[in-house]
C-alpha cells in the first residue's frame, strides 16, 4: 500500500506546476494538486546536497500573516513534505523554502522571499458534486489488478440535472467514452481500449465529465489510481503477506568545479500477519557523518487496532504548541482503548556533535562569551560550538468520544546530555505542560478547538542544581536578594524533580505568565458560509524544544470568512488579522501587525477557465514616528504597509488533446514610512502549460518572470533584481511503458543567466527491477558549468 501511495504521489506530482527559479540548491519544485480537503505533497529536487543540512518548508494560508515552518524529509536528492487537509484553505497557499547549510548559512527559495515575494499555489475548492460520482472500481486507495481492468462508476447520487447517458470518461488523457456501457446509474468501462490505455506497474488517471440535459457541462471528477500485477506475496502455511522495495542510487555532482559522489540505499517493506501490520524503512547514505546531524533514517512499526509501536526516526503528532513537526529518533507508542487513549515518545531530537577549537587564546584570556572554554591544560580557547545530544520524552493521555469530543493533556521533558559534545557550552533543559480540547457538533459544522501550554526553560544546566549553601548566601537579610532562603529551598525541592533548578531558569517571574501560550478557535459552516475566528496569545518566554519554530511574544485575533455563491461556482473570501507583540510589556514600543485579505474565485464550469482575483494589505506599526523628537528613538520605528494585487487563471480543456493551463500575475508594493524609507516593488508573472498528447507523450512549458525593485529612500538609491526563466520539456513512454524518457531545457535570463538541461531514462528490466539514469547539465554565466549524473536502481520483492 505504501508503494501504491508513493506511485500515486509521483504521478500526481508530474502534471502539477513546475516551478523554475534560480537557486544554488533547488533545481525543481513540484506538488500534487492543491485541493480543499485533500493532502498536498510538495517535492523539491536538490543539488549541492553535501552543503545542505536542512530544508524547511514555510507556508501560510489565506488570511494569516504568520508562516508555519515544517522540516522537510530529506532523502538523497529530494526533500518532501505532506501537508494535511486542514493545512489548506481557499483560495491559495503562499509558501517558500529555507535551505540551511552546514556552515550555518541559509538561502531562501525563491531568492526573492527575503523581499516578501513568495510562491503561491491556487487551492481548488472541493466540490460537493464530487460526491455525486461514486467510484466502485478501482476502489479508492487500492490498485487495479492488471487481470481485472475495469472501471465502474455509480451515478446514483448524481443530480437530476445530469443526463447520465452523456457521461464522458478519459483515461490517461484518452477519450474512451465510446466504450462506456451506461445502464441507468451504472457506468462500466472495460474492454481492449481500456487495457491498451492503462499503464501497468505505474500510475494512471481518469477524468469523468458529467453533462446536463441541454448538453452544457455540469461537473468534472478526476482521480488517480495505480495498476499493478499483484498486491503482495503470501507465505505458505502462515497468514503472512509482505512486500519489500529496495532502491539504490549512485550520483555524481560537479558543482563549482568540485566533484562529489553520493551513494545511498533505501529499503522499505510492509507485512501483514493476521491482525497485525508491520512496516520498516531504512535509508543509508554516504552523506552520513558522525560530526553532522543524522542523514540516515530508519523506522519500523507494529500496528494493531488497539496499539502501535514505532521505533527509529518518526515525527509524532502532539498538540501543536508542545510538539509539532519534530523528528524523534527513539520509540513512539500509543494505546487506543476508545474513550481513553495514550501516546508517548522517547528519543533524541539532536545528535551530540563535538565542537572544534578555533583559536587558543592563552591561559590569561577572559572566559567571558559563550564561545570561550577553559581547556584541560589551563588555556582559554575560542571554539566553534557543537551540539549536545538532546533527549525528549513526551506523553499525551487523551479522552475521546468519536469525532465529537477530545480532551488531551501533554507533558514534555527535554534535556541536553552535557557529556555528548566537547567544546560546547550551555546545555539546556525544557519542561512543557499543555492541554487541548476539541468539540465538534452538528456533523462537524461547529468546531471548537482550544489549547494551552506552559513552559519552563533552563538555559544552562552545566552546573546542575543550585546548592542550598548558595541559596543561603544569595537570599535573605545578608544576601543580594530579599527572598526567604527557606522558601526558595522548598521551591527548589519541588521543581528540581522536574527540571534543573538554578539561576538560569526562565521564566524568572512565573506569575507574569510570560511563558504561557494559548489559543482558541471556533469554526462554523452553515448555509455555504465558512467562518473561523481564532484568538491566540504566546508569551515571549514560551519555549518548547518540540516546536522551536513557533512565533512567540504575540497576541491577537484572526477572522476568516468564506461564502460560496452561485451554486458553489463563486467563492468570496475575507480575512482580517490583528496581532501585537510586547504581550508582557517588556519592550518600549508595541508593534501592531495588521493583515487584510480579500479574494474572489470564480469557477463557472469545468470546461471554462477558473479565475481568482485577490488583494491583500499588510501593515506594521509600532507608533514611533519618523519625526520623533528623539533621533535615536526614530531608528526603532516600524511603520510600513504592503499592498498586493494578484490574478490567477486556470484552464483545463480538451482541444484534440488534454491541456492544462495556468497563468498567474501579482504586483506588490511596500511603502516604508520610517526614517530608513526602504520601499520595495515586485512584479511576478507565471505561466504553466501542460499537454497530454496521448498516454505515451506529455509535454510542459513553464515561464516565470520576477522583477524586483528595492528602494533606499534615505540614500536615494534603487536596486533591481530581474529574472526570467523558461522550462520546456516532455515525457515519453516507450516499449509498452518499459522505457520512460524525460527531458527539459530551462534557460534563465536577466540578472542571473544560465541554461539547464535535464534528461532521464527509466527502464524496467523486469516488472520489479528498474534502472534510471538522470543527467543534469548547467551552463553558467561567469563561472564553470555544473553537471549531475545519477544512476538509480529499484527492486521490488513482492
Amino acid at each position, binding site marked *: 500500500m505504501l508503494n501504491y501511495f508513493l506511485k500515486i504521489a509521483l504521478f500526481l506530482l508530474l502534471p502539477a506546476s513546475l516551478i523554475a527559479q534560480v537557486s544554488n540548491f533547488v533545481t525543481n519544485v513540484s506538488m500534487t494538486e492543491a485541493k480543499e480537503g485533500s493532502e498536498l505533497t510538495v517535492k523539491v529536487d536538490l543539488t549541492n546536497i553535501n552543503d545542505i543540512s536542512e530544508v524547511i518548508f514555510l507556508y501560510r494560508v489565506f488570511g494569516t500573516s504568520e508562516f508555519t515552518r515544517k522540516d522537510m524529509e530529506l532523502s538523497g536528492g529530494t526533500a518532501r513534505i505532506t501537508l494535511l487537509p486542514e493545512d489548506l484553505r481557499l483560495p491559495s497557499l503562499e509558501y517558500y523554502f529555507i535551505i540551511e547549510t552546514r556552515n550555518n548559512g541559509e538561502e531562501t527559495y525563491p531568492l526573492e522571499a527575503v523581499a516578501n515575494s513568495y510562491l503561491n499555489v491556487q487551492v481548488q475548492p472541493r466540490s460537493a458534486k464530487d460526491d455525486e460520482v*461514486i467510484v*466502485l472500481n478501482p476502489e479508492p486507495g487500492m490498485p487495479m489488478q492488471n487481470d481485472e481492468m475495469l472501471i*465502474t462508476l*455509480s451515478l446514483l447520487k448524481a443530480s437530476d440535472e445530469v443526463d447520465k447517458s452523456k457521461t464522458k470518461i478519459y483515461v490517461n488523457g484518452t477519450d474512451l467514452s465510446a466504450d462506456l456501457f451506461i445502464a*441507468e446509474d451504472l457506468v462500466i468501462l472495460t474492454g481492449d481500449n481500456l487495457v491498451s490505455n492503462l499503464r501497468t506497474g505505474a500510475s494512471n488517471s481518469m477524468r469523468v465529465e458529467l453533462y446536463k440535459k441541454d448538453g452544457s457541462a455540469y461537473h468534472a471528477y478526476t482521480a488517480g489510481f495505480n495498476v499493478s500485477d499483484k*498486491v503482495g506475496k*503470501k507465505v505458505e502455511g502462515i497468514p503472512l503477506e509482505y512486500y519489500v522495495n529496495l532502491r539504490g542510487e549512485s550520483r555524481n555532482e560537479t558543482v563549482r568545479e568540485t566533484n562529489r559522489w553520493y551513494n545511498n540505499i533505501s529499503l522499505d517493506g510492509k507485512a501483514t500477519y493476521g491482525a497485525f501490520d508491520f512496516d520498516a524503512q531504512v535509508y543509508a547514505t554516504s552523506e552520513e557523518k558522525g560530526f553532522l546531524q543524522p542523514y540516515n533514517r530508519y523506522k519500523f512499526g507494529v500496528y494493531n487496532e488497539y496499539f502501535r509501536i514505532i521505533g527509529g526516526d518518526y515525527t509524532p503528532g502532539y498538540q501543536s504548541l508542545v510538539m509539532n513537526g519534530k523528528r524523534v529518533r527513539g520509540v513512539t507508542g500509543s494505546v487506543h482503548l476508545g474513550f481513553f487513549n495514550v501516546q508517548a515518545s522517547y528519543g533524541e531530537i539532536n545528535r551530540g556533535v563535538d565542537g572544534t577549537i578555533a583559536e587558543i587564546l592563552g591561559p590569561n584570556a577572559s572566559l567571558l562569551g559563550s564561545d570561550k572554554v577553559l581547556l584541560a591544560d589551563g588555556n582559554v580557547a575560542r571554539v566553534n560550538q557543537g551540539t549536545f545530544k538532546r533527549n525528549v520524552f513526551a506523553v499525551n493521555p487523551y479522552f475521546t468520544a468519536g469525532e465529537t469530543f477530545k480532551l488531551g493533556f501533554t507533558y514534555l521533558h527535554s534535556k541536553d546530555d552535557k557529556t555528548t559534545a566537547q567544546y560546547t557550552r550551555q546545555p539546556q533543559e525544557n519542561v512543557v505542560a499543555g492541554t487541548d480540547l476539541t468539540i465538534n457538533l452538528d456533523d462537524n459544522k461547529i468546531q471548537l478547538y482550544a489549547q494551552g501550554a506552559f513552559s519552563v526553560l533552563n538555559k544552562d544546566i552545566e552546573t546542575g542544581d543550585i546548592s542550598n549553601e548558595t541559596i543561603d548566601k544569595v537570599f535573605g537579610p545578608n544576601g543580594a536578594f530579599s527572598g526567604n532562603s527557606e522558601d526558595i529551598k522548598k521551591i527548589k525541592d519541588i521543581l528540581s524533580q522536574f527540571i534543573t533548578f538554578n539561576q538560569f531558569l526562565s521564566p524568572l517571574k512565573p506569575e507574569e505568565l510570560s511563558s504561557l501560550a494559548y489559543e482558541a478557535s471556533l469554526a462554523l459552516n452553515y448555509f455555504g458560509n465558512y467562518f473561523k475566528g481564532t484568538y491566540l496569545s504566546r508569551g515571549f518566554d514560551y519555549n518548547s524544544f518540540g516546536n522551536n519554530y513557533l512565533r512567540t511574544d504575540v497576541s491577537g485575533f484572526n477572522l476568516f470568512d468564506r461564502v460560496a455563491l452561485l451554486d458553489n461556482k463563486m467563492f468570496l473570501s475575507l480575512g482580517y488579522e490583528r496581532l501585537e507583540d510586547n504581550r508582557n510589556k517588556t519592550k518600549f514600543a508595541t508593534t501592531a501587525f495588521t493583515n487584510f485579505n480579500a479574494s474572489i474565485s470564480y469557477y463557472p464550469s469545468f470546461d471554462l477557465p477558473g479565475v481568482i482575483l485577490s488583494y491583500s494589505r499588510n501593515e506594521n506599526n509600532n507608533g514611533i514616528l519618523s519625526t520623533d523628537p528623539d533621533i535615536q528613538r526614530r531608528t526603532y520605528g516600524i511603520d510600513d504597509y504592503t499592498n498586493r494585487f494578484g490574478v490567477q487563471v486556470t484552464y483545463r480543456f480538451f482541444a484534440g488533446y488534454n491541456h492544462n493551463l495556468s497563468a498567474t500575475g501579482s504586483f506588490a508594493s511596500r511603502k516604508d514610512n520610517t526614517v530608513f524609507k526602504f520601499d520595495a516593488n515586485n512584479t511576478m508573472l507565471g505561466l504553466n502549460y501542460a499537454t497530454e498528447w496521448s498516454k505515451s507523450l506529455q509535454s510542459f512549458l513553464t515561464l516565470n518572470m520576477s522583477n524586483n525593485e528595492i528602494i533606499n529612500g534615505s540614500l536615494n538609491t534603487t536596486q533591481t533584481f530581474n529574472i526570467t526563466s523558461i522550462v520546456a520539456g516532455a515525457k515519453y513512454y516507450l516499449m509498452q511503458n518499459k522505457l520512460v524518457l524525460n527531458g527539459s531545457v530551462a534557460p534563465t535570463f536577466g540578472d542571473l543567466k544560465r541554461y539547464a538541461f535535464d534528461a532521464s531514462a527509466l527502464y524496467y528490466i523486469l516488472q520489479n527491477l528498474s534502472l534510471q539514469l538522470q543527467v543534469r547539465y548547467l551552463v553558467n554565466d561567469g563561472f564553470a558549468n555544473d553537471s549531475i549524473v545519477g544512476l538509480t536502481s529499484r527492486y521490488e520483492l513482492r
Partner: protein
Amino acid sequence: MKKYLLNVSVLALAVFFFSGAGEEINAPAAVVTKVVNTAQYKSSAGKWVDLKTGQALSSEDMIKTSGKSLVVVKFTDNSVLKVRENSQVKISTLKKDKNVSKTVDVDKGSVNASVTKQDQQDFKFKSPTLVASVRGTSLLFGVGVDSTNIDLENGRLFCEAQLGKQESGDLNEQETVLVTPEGSFKPRQMTEEDKKRFNNSAKSNVKKVILKTPQGDIVIEYLDN
C-alpha cells in the same frame, strides 16, 4: 362517455401505482467487480451462463459459485457483497429516488457483506430460516442445510426467524447467532474462532499456478483461504 371515464380511471390508477412516493425503476443496480475461478450468472428470464467481471446485475438476477470460487459484487451505493464458494444467491433491487432497496436471498453457502451507512435504504438478507435487516454493517451470512448463521463484526442487525417460534431481535456488533427451523433467536458473543471465520470470509486473495508449456503459459487461478 363510459369508455372515456374508464380510460381516465385506468390512467389515474396507473399514475397512482407508478408514481406515488417516487419512481420505482427496475434498473441495473450492481456490477460484478471480481470473479475468481468459475461462477455463473442467470438473469431473471435467462439461462445459467459463465459470469465475467464487469457484468451489470439487475433485479432478480442470480449468481452461483463453485468450489474455491469468489464473486465480488458492488451495488450503486458502494455496498460490497462477496459471494463465497459453493453459494447461490439472488439479488433483488428496487430504486426509489436516490435510494436503492436491496435484498439478497441466500439459497445456500455464505456471503460476506460490507454495507455502507444506509440513509433510507433497505438492505435485507434472507434465508429460508431468517430475515436480517441491515444498517451500516459488516457481516457474514451463512446458510446451511436447515440453519442460518450470522457473524456481525460491526453495526446492528434486526433479525426475524421465519419458522417455528419466529423469534426476533437485534444482533449487536461482535455477536453471532445460529437460527434453526425451531425459530429461537439467541445471540452470543463472537469467539476467536468466529472472528477467524469472519476474517477469512472478508478476504478475496487469489493464488495463481502458472504451468509453462511449449504452447504457452497456462494460468490456474483459485481463491486462497
